[in-house]
């Protein structure tokens, strides 16, 4: 079990250090409610603060410093967890053991990260440097545009937006293109102070580094009054009527994404059910819809457990869209009817064991594994979760499928005529 250090009820450091790795990672996760009034400001701010620091007020100087520390990196991104926005600022570098200059890697890198987060660079106006603002705003706009370039991502985003149409989670992690364009630069310092004061902080320290030094140094930074948000997360039931959304685009292959909602409370049964349904190359969707019926090139599902949702995505020929949808729904109906072979059931459990057993071999997987449990009352290790999966019965899986209902059908119809 990793060691948790609670600096306060809203600041937790999680020690995942392990000397088998040749690198280390320190990640600050700042959780706030996802809100259309603040989402875009938070997104732009998270990258602004990482761009320049008081010690390295020029972009190239900071980049050169990181490069000379054996290509270390400091980066930021934005994700969503249920109805909440997560502002991620992280650093990674090689362990001091492999630094031929004898550098104290964690000290050098942590000081840059802490300076960026707690005392970000401001200009003589008391604002964030204009150059940072302009560039980071542009990059968020381009990131939104890039999501349109990848039609697989685009189709999933569209379906999620429709599936969460009456919920906070329906908002994009960046807010809207409009709200990014309309950010008022003069208000940003206030927004960042608000993040420092009100976000829930979860800090992950992993890989080969001096944990105690990091814990002590980080602890000293939280010496100010905080008034954290109470984070909430709501999961709505499926609508009474099927929500159908479709759009056309000049593409060779169409995309079909189905959004389901579940009322199943047993998350382990949901996990296992989704692996049997479409989470592996021996799942029902892969074996039957793709392999036997040749209806699509890819067809898989994944659960969004916090939102009690499940998403099936597939790439389909335009004239097979309806047939693919029917075939996908038939597979779910089969699970509801208990048409699951012993092999399918065992294979799904083994696949989950395999991925749980491998979590401790990657710094990133380890971090995400524990991040996903932020809202859970009880935190489990991969081995403890494995035991819970072991205990799931066939009838639990059938029950999970029965409680899972189709809510949204999204199709992106390709209109390119193929010869």
């Amino acid at each position, binding site marked *: 079990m990793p060691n948790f250090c609670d600096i306060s009820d809203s600041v937790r450091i999680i020690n995942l250090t392990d000397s088998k790795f040749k690198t280390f990672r320190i990640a600050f996760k700042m959780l706030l409610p996802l809100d259309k009034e603040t989402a875009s400001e938070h997104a732009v701010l998270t990258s602004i603060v990482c761009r320049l620091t008081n010690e390295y007020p020029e972009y*190239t100087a900071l980049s050169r410093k*990181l490069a000379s520390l054996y290509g270390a990196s400091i980066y930021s991104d934005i994700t969503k967890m249920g109805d909440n926005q997560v502002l991620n600022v992280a650093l990674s570098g*090689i362990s001091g053991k492999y630094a031929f200059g004898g550098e104290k890697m964690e000290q050098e890198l942590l000081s840059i990260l802490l300076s960026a987060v707690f005392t970000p660079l401001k200009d003589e106006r008391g604002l964030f440097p204009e*150059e940072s603002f302009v*560039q980071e705003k542009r990059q968020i706009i381009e990131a939104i545009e890039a999501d349109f*370039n990848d039609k697989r991502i685009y189709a999933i985003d569209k379906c999620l937006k429709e599936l969460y149409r009456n919920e906070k989670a329906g908002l994009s992690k960046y807010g809207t293109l409009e709200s990014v364009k309309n950010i008022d630069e003069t208000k940003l310092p206030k927004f960042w102070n608000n993040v420092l004061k009100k976000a829930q902080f979860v800090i992950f320290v992993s890989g080969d580094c001096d944990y105690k030094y990091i814990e002590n140094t980080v602890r000293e930074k939280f010496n100010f009054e905080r008034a954290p948000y109470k984070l909430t997360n709501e999961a709505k039931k499926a609508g009474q009527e099927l929500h159908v959304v479709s759009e056309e685009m000049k593409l060779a292959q169409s995309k079909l994404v189905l959004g389901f909602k579940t009322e199943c409370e047993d998350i382990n049964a949901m996990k296992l059910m989704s692996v049997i349904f479409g989470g592996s190359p021996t799942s029902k969707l892969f074996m039957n819809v793709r392999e036997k019926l040749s209806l699509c090139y890819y067809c898989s599902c994944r659960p969004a457990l916090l939102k009690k949702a499940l998403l099936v995505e597939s*790439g389909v020929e335009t004239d097979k869209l309806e047939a693919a949808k029917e075939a996908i729904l038939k597979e779910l109906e089969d699970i509801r009817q208990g048409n699951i072979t012993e092999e399918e059931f065992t294979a799904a459990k083994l*696949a989950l064991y395999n991925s749980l057993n491998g979590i401790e071999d990657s710094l990133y997987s380890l971090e995400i594994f524990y991040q996903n449990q932020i809202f859970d009352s009880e935190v489990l290790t991969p081995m403890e979760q494995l035991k819970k999966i072991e205990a799931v019965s066939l009838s639990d899986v059938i029950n999970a499928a029965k409680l899972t209902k189709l809510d949204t059908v999204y199709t992106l119809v390709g209109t390119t005529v193929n010869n």
Partner: protein
Amino acid sequence: MVIDMENINKLWKKVESERTGDHYFTLTHPTGLEIFVYPKKNFSTTFAIFGTRYGSIDNCFKRSDELEASVVPEGIAHFLEHKLFESEEGDTFLKFAATGASANAFTSFESTCYLFSATQNIYPSLEILLDFVQSPYFTEETVKKEQGIIGQEIKMYEDDPGWCSMFNMLKGMYHKHPIKNDIAGTVESISKITPEYLYRCYNTFYNLSNMALVVVGNAECDKVLDICDKLLKRTEPMQVERIYEAEPETVVEPYIEQKMSVALPLFQLGFKESVKGKHIDEKTIAETEIILDAMASDASPLFKRLYDMQLINESSFSYEFFEGEGHAAVMFGGESRDPQKVAEEINKEIKKLKEIGIDKETFEISKRSIYGSNISGLNSSSAIANAMISMKFNGRELYKYIDSLAVITLEDVNRRLREIMMEDKAVLSVILPED
């Protein structure tokens, strides 16, 4: 557990890296197969790759047991990859499912690899891997079905702007070299594939002396060897000569554009290099990587200038040295509102850098940065296994490559800089939004 090192050493050659503290064992099996076992202490995951040096560019070849060379349709290597997962008894994924291993495969320009990652039942999974790759089974009916599935895959790539931008660039660069063709082939070329073609290419390239097995993680050498002894099928040793038409030094077209459903234009700018001999050695590759890092990493003046001009963004701008048998190119890519302007600025920078050379401090920083990324790569069993097998097929070695970084001098790098990235060998490929 006690490993009998003395006994291991009699059969296996131990290759050590003082710099990284890692090591691996290697052995050439009597069947001709080269085997690598790379221990990762305290890791739970074992990653195994069984691969053949046979990729999408190997469509014209001459076997040592035949007099004439033969030409086959494009896309067979990839087609074989799909088909080998199906055996007479059914789908191979089902066999792996019973061990819990996660299996996959990929085809590149120069190799086809089958792999699994497992945290339990490692040896039974290894048996499945060795068995299915050595058990081809193709019928008219199964080939026909696969043509449909691969046709869908090809269409999916037609909608991928990054993919199209890359292949358009390669088409603009190469007159003859098959690197310009899509790995999966075309809907037309795969329609010509028959079970006979598949068996012929299988028997030519899936010869154990043309293959390698890499196991990284938690496996013991003698157990791996026992399974190999039991399952490897002896084949007549055979040499395969890959035949490529002579490739002119010039490019086909310096500029190519295509319109697609994108919000922001994409570009790929490549500089063709003439390749003498088969493959480029470890040191030359490391030199080129230092040059690219010094010239275009986010710590470089070029990056800063492009960024200030709002011509590139951090998440998409990239560069790489892309090379293989008979081809090599330096490439830059990303999203930009004005790809032509980006190309112009890159060309200006190359010209300037060739005149003044890379400075000592930048050179040292880039060397450290590349060293760091190599160390980071050794964290992951899958990254190690992929690097080991691709280096083996290209006649290179992992530690030799990492060590070569330490001996490269500034003079080496500046000499290499003057040989590459010639403006008259450049191709710019651009994907623009529909009108």
